[in-house]
């Protein structure tokens, strides 16, 4: 139970650190910065786990776990809360296509938009073409695609990712 409590508390501290970082820092590679904060925080989390009382000074004996099992469980929950929680929240808020459409409609004076208005007004007026260009730039900057003689070509990393996506899509019978 100590692992769960520390993971929850640690995750809140991490959220505060992320908020300060995103509000203060002017970095282009924000996902990398968030991941660095998480990686740096991991040994701190483990140290806090190891150097605090097994019962945290308040848990009944029946809720005290073994040191190894408790620490591994705590790290698993702490990592999941960051990778599946805060990092995904950031990705959705920063890149979510559907969410951007919902926000655009909510901020429109009529609180409703035609498909043409959505098309032109996407991303606070940047339009859908900007969104497509942003995705292409992202694939290049993340090393999945390189520009070769004026053509976009997958790198070996991109080929591996594409192969994985194709296999998963076929197995799940996802429509093209």
């Amino acid at each position, binding site marked *: 139970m100590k692992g*769960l409590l520390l993971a929850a508390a640690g995750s809140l501290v991490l959220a505060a650190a992320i908020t300060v970082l995103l509000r203060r820092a002017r970095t282009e590679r924000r996902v990398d910065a968030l991941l660095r904060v998480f990686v740096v925080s991991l040994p701190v989390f483990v140290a806090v786990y190891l150097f605090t009382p097994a019962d945290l000074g308040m848990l009944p004996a029946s809720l005290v*776990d073994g040191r190894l099992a408790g620490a591994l469980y705590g790290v698993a*929950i702490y990592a999941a809360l960051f990778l599946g929680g805060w990092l995904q929240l950031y990705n959705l808020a920063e890149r979510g296509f559907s969410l951007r459409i*919902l926000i655009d409609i909510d901020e429109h004076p009529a609180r409703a938009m035609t498909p043409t208005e959505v*098309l032109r007004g996407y991303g606070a007026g940047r339009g859908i073409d900007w969104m497509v260009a942003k995705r292409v730039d992202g694939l290049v900057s993340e090393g999945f695609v390189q520009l070769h003689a004026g053509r976009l070509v997958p790198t070996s990393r991109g080929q591996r990712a594409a192969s994985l996506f194709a296999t998963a899509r076929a197995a799940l019978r996802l429509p093209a």
Partner: protein
Amino acid sequence: MSLEPLAVASLMALAWTAAAIAAHFALFGLGRVERRSRALVLLFVAAALGEAVTCVALGVDGARTLCGMVLIACAFILYMPLYYTVAASFSARMLLDLAGAPGGLSREALAGRYPAAAIVAGRLETLCRAGYLKHADSAVALTAKGVVTARAFALVKRAWRLGAGG
């Protein structure tokens, strides 16, 4: 040697998570699933219930059983984004397009595969089906669920100073 209750609950949670993912591939691969998100949520809910039943049967106490269920919830929040990257990400689809084109594609040719009007029409329809939008004459408007979602994320964007994004 007997394992302590938290270790038993955690191992059972891993097993039930693996079962939920296997069932996801089996269900989607073998049958036609209309409401895919709901089906995936139900599979993980079933895994959490399976965890509870197994832990009770193995004599694990309530607190550790809850810990196991939390672990399954964490697996769910990790698995869902992975699934949506494979299923719906534009970047993933672009990568597949490029990998399937010998010699790659020019930027214009790639962009040409994503006609803006079709992209928007498709996504608006998906959002209507999911209950975030409703048709209002020739326009679309937010439902109550859509308003809550839009404002919650607008708040996050302001708090983290993310700009327009999208």
